[in-house]
């Protein structure tokens, strides 16, 4: 992530030459605070490019038709309009659910885990990634909510005191799921919104009086940027990051429990939680790339979302893709090592049985395609990056399909084996959620700051109150110091004074 350079000290320097790690700049071309404000707010203040409309209108239509009509037909007629049977009880519904919820994970990971690990490069992408989380979880939520046979009875899932004196089964992974996903959505929403408050205030302060100013004013809560607010705010942000990190790990673990706690061969395996979490991060980053690379071009944000960001994400995809590939192989080994016929068969049929093509798609998209990222040239070529990201999106969908359908269609008793194929309603609904996701994301670009303005400003060199102090510090080898080093020294200085 950083390159070691030999730095030539300025002519005024005396003393030994010290090699230091110079960070690549996160914001290029020495942009000013105001430029950043202008640039980011410009995305939502200027007229939208034609392309926005060209994308938004079809997405919104697809969302309305696919999700709206699809769900209306589903609820009015019955789950039978989907392709499931009394052999394969889950199909595209839960596949899509796990797919979308997995995508959400990158957002939280970027905003929370990278925050805690002081990865400042996250600042340019975290807002959009968090938005993606919210929208992906919304898309995901549609499936478990509406896949139930009696959606009008879904309130049975909520622990409400009732005249029937009956409660939920707290031992059910599905109930854990309900709690995990709703908590995840709520916390992500809080995190996203709180992170946005100072930026909404920025927009508010740029607005002329009117409806826009009122709305931004209301949602920015009267933010004044006073340090007595910033102080608590930063603490809250840190706490939320600390809460989200275990949460994001738990959510996909709990999703994996749906499978791992069952008795179904091919599901009943303890490696599922880490395997699912890694897969979720993997798929999530691919989706971030899929969306951010075009958005960056569209709105000219190259100075904010730099090739360094893309490079970093590509490396994460490579890492998690390799973990996922390891998990795929380990599954096979564990099945072999168990010596249980049913376990071995489950994987044999997955790989060679009626859904072999799904397995091949999964393996080639998830394990093989990221291997391009070993090469810097590939990581720097946006076309390759986009292609791999798209592959991973597809591959991760197939992973869930293989796990769910490939397993259920060939379970314990050959007498009940029957394959499954989706109906047009399921396909429509899935495409509808893609439309919904895009439409929501485009609305987000249109109305909300897609990059965290305050945090980006914070990463500039001059935002460190001590950035100009260092000329006086003889123990520094260079005046060009990485931002995080400034922070460290800045703190030391404060403490010394206090």
């Amino acid at each position: 992530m950083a390159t070691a350079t030999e730095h030539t000290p300025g002519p005024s320097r005396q003393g030994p030459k010290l090699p230091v790690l110079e960070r690549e700049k996160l914001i290029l071309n020495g942009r000013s605070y105001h430029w950043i404000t202008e640039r980011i707010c410009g995305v939502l203040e200027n007229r939208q490019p034609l392309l926005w409309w060209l994308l938004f209108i079809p997405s919104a239509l697809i969302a309305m038709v696919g999700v709206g009509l699809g769900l209306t037909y589903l609820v009015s007629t019955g789950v039978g309009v989907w392709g499931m049977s009394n052999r394969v009880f889950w199909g595209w519904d839960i596949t899509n659910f796990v797919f979308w919820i997995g995508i959400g994970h990158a957002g939280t990971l970027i905003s929370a885990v990278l925050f805690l690990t002081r990865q400042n490069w996250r600042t340019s992408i975290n807002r959009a990634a968090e938005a993606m989380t919210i929208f992906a979880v919304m898309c995901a939520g549609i499936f478990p909510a509406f896949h139930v046979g009696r959606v009008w009875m879904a309130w049975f899932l909520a622990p409400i005191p009732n005249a029937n004196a009956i409660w939920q089964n707290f031992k059910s992974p599905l109930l854990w799921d309900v709690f995990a996903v709703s908590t995840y959505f709520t916390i992500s929403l809080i995190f996203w919104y709180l992170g946005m408050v100072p930026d909404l205030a920025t927009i508010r302060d740029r607005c002329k009086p009117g409806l826009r100013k009122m709305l931004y004013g209301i949602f920015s809560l009267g933010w004044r940027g006073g340090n007595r607010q910033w102080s608590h705010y930063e603490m809250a942000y840190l706490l939320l990051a600390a809460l989200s990190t275990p949460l994001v790990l738990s959510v996909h673990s709990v999703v994996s429990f749906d499978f791992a706690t069952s008795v179904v061969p091919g599901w009943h395996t303890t490696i599922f939680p880490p395997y699912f979490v890694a897969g979720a991060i993997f798929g999530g980053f691919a989706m971030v790339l899929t969306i951010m690379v075009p958005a960056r071009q569209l709105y000219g944000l190259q100075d904010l979302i730099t090739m360094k960001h893309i490079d970093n994400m590509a490396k994460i995809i490579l890492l998690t893709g390799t973990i996922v590939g390891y998990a795929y192989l380990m599954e096979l080994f564990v099945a072999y090592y168990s010596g249980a016929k049913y376990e071995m068969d489950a994987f044999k049929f997955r790989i060679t049985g009626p859904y072999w093509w799904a397995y091949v798609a999964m393996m080639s998209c998830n394990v093989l395609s990221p291997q391009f990222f070993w090469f810097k040239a590939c990581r720097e070529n946006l076309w390759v990056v986009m292609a791999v990201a798209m592959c991973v999106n597809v591959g991760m969908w197939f992973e869930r399909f293989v796990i769910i359908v490939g397993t259920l269609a060939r379970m314990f008793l050959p007498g009940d084996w029957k394959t499954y194929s989706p109906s047009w309603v399921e396909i429509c609904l899935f495409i509808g959620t893609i439309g919904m996701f895009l439409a929501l994301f485009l609305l987000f670009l249109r109305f909300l700051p897609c990059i965290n303005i305050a945090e980006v400003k914070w990463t500039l060199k001059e935002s460190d109150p001590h950035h100009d102090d260092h000329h006086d510090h003889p123990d520094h080898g260079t005046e060009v110091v990485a931002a995080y080093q400034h922070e460290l020294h800045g703190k030391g200085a404060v403490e010394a004074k206090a």
Partner: protein
Amino acid sequence: MSKRIWQHPEVPADETTVSWRGLGQLEDTPAFRTWMEREFPQGVAEMANEGDAETSRRSFLKLMGASTALAGFGMAACRRPESYIVPYNKAPEWVIPGKATYYASSMPRAAGATPLVVTTFEGRPTKVTANSLHPDAAGTDAFAQASVLDLYSPSRSRKVLKQGQPAPRADFEAVIAGLAADKSAKIGFVFGHDVSPTRARLVKELTAKFSAAKFYAYEALEGSASKVLGDGVRAVADFSKADRILSIDCDFASLDPQGPVTPFFDRRKPEGKTYSAKPDAAGMNRLYSIESAFSMTGGMADHRLRVRPGQLLEITALIAQRLQIAVPTVPINPADKTLKWVTAMVDDLVASKGKSLVLAGSRLPQPFHVLVAAINEKLGNVGKDKPLHYVRTDAQGLGDLVSLKTDLENGTVETLVLLTPANPVLDAPADLKFGEALAKAKTVIHLGGRSDATAHASTWHVPASHYLESWSDARSANGVYTVVQPMILPLYGECVSELELLSALLTDDGKLVTGEGEGGTPSPAHDAVKKTFEAIGGKGSEPWRKLLREGFHAGSTYEVAEVKVPDTAVAALPASPDKTFDVVFATDASVYDGRWIDNGWLQEAPDPITKQSWDNAALIAPQTAKDMGIYDEIVALETWNGATGPDGEGEHRTAPMIKVKVNGTEIEIPVMISFGQAENTIVIPLGYGQGFDGEDKFNRNAAGSAPASHVGQVGVNSGFNAYPVRTAATAYFATGATVEKTSKRYPIAVVQEHHAMYGRALAREISTIDSGDHKGDFAEQLHNVKLQGNDGHAPPNISLYKQQDRAGKPLLSDPLHQWAMTIDLSSCMGCNACLVACQSENNIPIVGKQQLAKGREMHWIRMDRYYAVDKGNDFDPGNPALVPQPVACVQCESAPCETVCPVNATVHTEDGLNAMAYNRCIGTRYCANNCPYKARRFNFFDYNKRNPLVAHNLYKGPFGEKQVGEAPHLQRNPNVTVRMRGVMEKCTYCVQRLKDAKIRQKRGQKQEALLAGKASPDSAVTTATLRIPVDSVKVACQEACPAGAISFGNKLDGDKSAMMRAKGIERNYDLLNYIGTAPRTSYLARVKNPNEKMPDHQWIGKATIHMH
């Protein structure tokens, strides 16, 4: 006015006995007798007359029509809608609202009546089951179980038709009156092959009255045995006495009954019928089967030889020859293997002389019956106390269809009354051209339950009363006089029963009285039956009451007929020419000869062999299919990778169409692979393709020969009609058929797509002999049943948890009852009786062909049927073993489904059931995914509210057509919730019956207290008084099973319960034991009893034994 005899201030002392019959709950105690006298009181003062008493209890529609209006599905509104309680105006006798009443009756059938106990609720018959008191009781089959649905079928004929158009019944009554007046009428009557003493008596009276009257009997699948044995003579087998049985293409266990079959199955259990003896192969019978395609019987066989039908006679002659019966006319050149097989088998038969039994399929041509009669005679098997005896039935002097045709053509018969359950216009041999002959009659009166092709070809069609609506009598297989009594007045006013019609013709004025007479007098059929019975059982009301109570007259049997061994000089049948195929016109397990085509339960029940539903297909062995060029590769029984078959799977499965040309005519029909079938043989089940509408894939409605009006909603567009290629000479099979491929394909619905166990020891099998394959002798194989397959090396399951509640008590806390079940694969043949019984008991909907193809069948019992062939089998690798395995919810003690339900909709009950609360279920379907047995069924649509039989209807949602008519709802069991869409359902061991039994038992506490005169707090209540008597409560599948394969009972009864004894024997194993689900239903491994001297003995009983 009032007839409410139960209106006593005090309670009858022992009204615990409402479902006394057949439940074994009450032994013959004095209290029981007292109660019986009260139940059937002599000379109850309030009764106006006897007939009044008989009809009043059945007058439910008249009195209680509004009661069903109560069942409404109301969402809780702010204030609930007003609903009404509509009591009887005059309460009918013996009807206790909300309680079942049981009546003994029977279902008349060609092979002998099936004695039944009929469950009725407020006068609605809802369920039939075997009358176990009857001496010829042999369980029920799927047809008997499904017959109750016909009563309420929306396809049922309910209007009188004249030339196919609705006409007033009064017009028809005038025709009858005219006929009755004309004593010289040239009138002919065609009956079915069922035997009714009253009908026989009326025939005599008719002969006396109408001098020109002629009588015939016809059913489509009739055989020619009586031509060999004599008029009205039948062979009846007594399987309890048969040590060795040879079936020559005779499905005696299922579709071709030759006598009460339960004793056969009893002797398939090495531990004896009730599992009380030590396992011993000596007590078992041994079944040899020679057949061309798998039948249920063939699946049970210890040794099975597959032979194309054209060679069957040769094999039969060979057997005769080995027994020194000369058959000079039949050329005998058997293959080596066949000769060895037959020789060893005949040796075994000879060794069991007098205790062996040879049966030929009743539909086989005459020469077979000649030979088999001679063989049985030679083996000394015939006679009293022998496995076979001949009886003379009441159905004598009846002409056949050929003579009827002649009589019609030459004008001997001008008025024809068709009373047969068959459909001769459709199902008569094609070369007879019966339809043309029928047109020559002046008047044809057709009495039938369906407005089928014959109904439309007749002058008059009259809707027939269902047997549950009409008075009649019948004889069971051995000739026991058995009553058919109505449970309900005919649902539709125009219905007429056979005896009512005959009675009307016998009256002077020809007045047709049906249902009940004016002023509630009984139907003339009642009087006729009573008169017949008086001659058999004696006069007076006591024998009559006993008959109605028990359903049969004990001691009455057919007279034994002496049959002269016929001349063995039989004519050879034409040989099968080279490169042609033999075609078997098979009896269908779902529609029989086509008469059940409108019965949804039967249509939906998968064929026990092919597992196909809703259609028929030409069945062909894999090798033959490859030879024909239908498939490029031999279709494998088992693939290494679990791939889908060549025709696809589920909703995408289509079958290639072929043209079969035989007897000079050709039909197009889809092809299915059937394993274990003889090569070069095409099996085509009969009875399908009776009517088509615009939804038919091949637009066969356009041809016009089979319009949709000939069938109802169930049977329309169902299957392919093979009758047009069947001739009188080839009524059962034909030779010389040629086959042509077409490019067309037809979608088929197959419930089970994979036929092998894929190396998993699921339906286990052992043999009674040591075959030298290191699996040891019978004892060792028994010992290792539990270790077959994966279970041999899986470590035991140890739970981390103690199964305790807060107080440290066990979770399954009921100290009185812990339910469990065993299913004995040794006697289960895989018929659908249990499946249909479950459907009728538990209000299970049908879903239609399209849904079924997708795999959305709702049957709580999935009848898995596995084929297994040993890799080393060099005798006949194309002849696999067939092992059925019914799988319903096994009520795991540690049920994986329960823990995953988020809303507690499925939890365990205290007595060990895996309960399902439908109204709590939200339909996540997680439970079903996590069920290793896939025993759960999901209501993907509102099958109960949206008619699944109307094309695309389910997919129309709120705009779809609602269920047709009110009648199907009347069949519902009021004690079982009718499930709505979006909920999961499954077997719960008929929990409604268990609960009912428990409540009845607990009521005993009160009886005891009151009778002893003690204060109730002092009355003794012990575990013994509260526990249901041993094995007294039966579940629906168990009751229906003709093979006694299902044992059910209370684990806490210990060895007193047959179920617990079965659990104690070594054959007992848990399905998928290694997962640790601790199922309450366990299976008993199938035992094959091969003959060591047979050339194929080492491949017998090896379905799972080599799996590990």
